[in-house]
């Protein structure tokens, strides 16, 4: 049920993100979601794309430090308290969220959040036990 995400190390320099988007555009890779974690010196750009292999190859060829990490895409009820229910469930199961960000597309009438956990497998079983839908990678890339 896991999805793959591409993480890219970036220095805080003007024009660096547009270089990444340029490389992906040229490789014909479509970006489905992204988040940027930044410090004063550097940032980590995290992307969900439609073709991981192609994206990774293009970024590596351009000399970037790239890593594929596993994340989980979760359906969230699009109403007040929707996200809270999920986080509360995880908290009670003692599962720590490393980071999270929103996916652009909706799944029917539901929103999608991308999560990274320290204990990925355990998180999936807890979520499924509480009838929270985890979207598979293959479905996510082509939504």
């Amino acid at each position: 049920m896991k999805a793959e995400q591409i993480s890219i190390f970036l220095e805080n320099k003007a024009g660096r993100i547009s270089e990444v988007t340029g490389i992906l555009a040229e490789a014909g890779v479509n970006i489905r979601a992204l988040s940027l974690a930044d410090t004063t010196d550097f940032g980590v750009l995290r992307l969900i794309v439609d073709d991981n292999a192609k994206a990774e190859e293009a970024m590596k060829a351009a000399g970037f430090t790239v890593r594929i990490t596993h994340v989980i895409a979760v359906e969230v009820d699009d109403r007040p308290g929707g996200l809270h229910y999920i986080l509360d469930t995880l908290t009670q199961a003692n599962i720590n969220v490393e980071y999270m960000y929103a996916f652009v597309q909706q799944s029917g009438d539901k929103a999608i959040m991308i999560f990274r956990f320290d204990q990925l497998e355990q998180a999936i079983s807890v979520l499924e036990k509480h009838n929270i839908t985890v979207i598979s990678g293959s479905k996510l890339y082509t939504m």
Partner: protein
Amino acid sequence: MIFDIEYETMPREALESIQLRRLQTTLSRVYATVPFYRKKFDEAGVLPGDVKSLDDLRRLPFTMKQDLRDNYPFGMFAVPMENVVRIHASSGTTGKPTVVGYTARDINTWAELMARSLASGGASRGDIIHNAYGYGLFTGGLGAHYGAEKLGASVIPVSGGNTKRQVIIMRDFGPTILTCTPSYALHLAEAAEEEGVSFRDLKFKSGIFGAEPWTEDMRHEIENKLGLTAIDVYGLSEIIGPGVAIECHEAQNGLHIFEDHFIPEIIDPETGEVLPYGETGELVITSLTKEAFPVIRYRTRDVTSLNVEPCICGRTHYRMSKISGRTDDMLIIRGVNVFPSQIESVLMQIEGVEPHYQLIVDREENLDTLTVFVEVSKEAFSDEVKGLQQFAQTIEKEIREYLGISAKVKLAEPKSIERSQGKAARVIDNRSF
């Protein structure tokens, strides 16, 4: 004031005849007692007896810092250990430090040279000396301390660090002479200001500053902010420590080298050829009176020139100009000697560090700063910011532990650090000397 009128103002002819006699004695001694020198002299085909004039000195081979490292720790000592009363060493390194020894007579010589230096900078009996050079393996603290006592001044052995306490002592004890590195002097001035103490209201009249290169601009800044006469002192542990050469407060124009104890030469660092007086090149020093650790034609790597014009202060010893650079890539950061290769070997021991790095040296608020740019390899890359920050902190900790200096580590993208044929691009020194 001139501490030793007889020797410091000796006519050149008499001085040079003393130099020759002392040189011949030193050469015979090292040939007999230090296997390194015997081998080098034999290889060069010059025996101590062949040196019949001061000009003959140039027939002898140079001694390099590497030679001292190769003979670590005591291989260059010319006396048995039972005659060695003190050991000093160059600042902490991953490689072998340079170890030097002193006999009781050497300690006395050194104290005399520092007493001369302090006097030349305006100190005398009755002065209170605030000695903020570090005490320890570094020669600065103890060198200035023994000189102050020899002079008959009152010395406060405050050493480096704990700046707030230093300000209180300066305010309450009323010291009149300050001894420390020039950058620490400016740091003290700022710390005093923060504590509401104006340096200009303190009793300081002179400061004797050394252990790192500094410019005329920095001298003016120090003199303005601290309200004292700033004097440059030169020395290095391989020769004896501070007190090899000193400016006089009368001229503040060049540092008199104590030629009754040392012979200076200026060479072309490429060819090794001795340059005429007045030309700029690398300073080479031969010790004339040291017992435990004599050095013959030691290449200091410091760039300067010699001025043979008579000085208004009355001293007859030649003057060297302020150090204007180095002929190797050694950096002096807050008084600590650091070679880029030492930082490199620390980095290479850390997993995930690419063998490409860049060092940026700067001076912020009068203190030297070192920034190390390190390329992040695929192995070290964590997609969590926390992980990357920990990685950078690990490197900072290792550098501090091995080299004794604080560095700021910045992570860079692979291949973003310039690849160059030379070593130069690895170090960017934004300080101006």
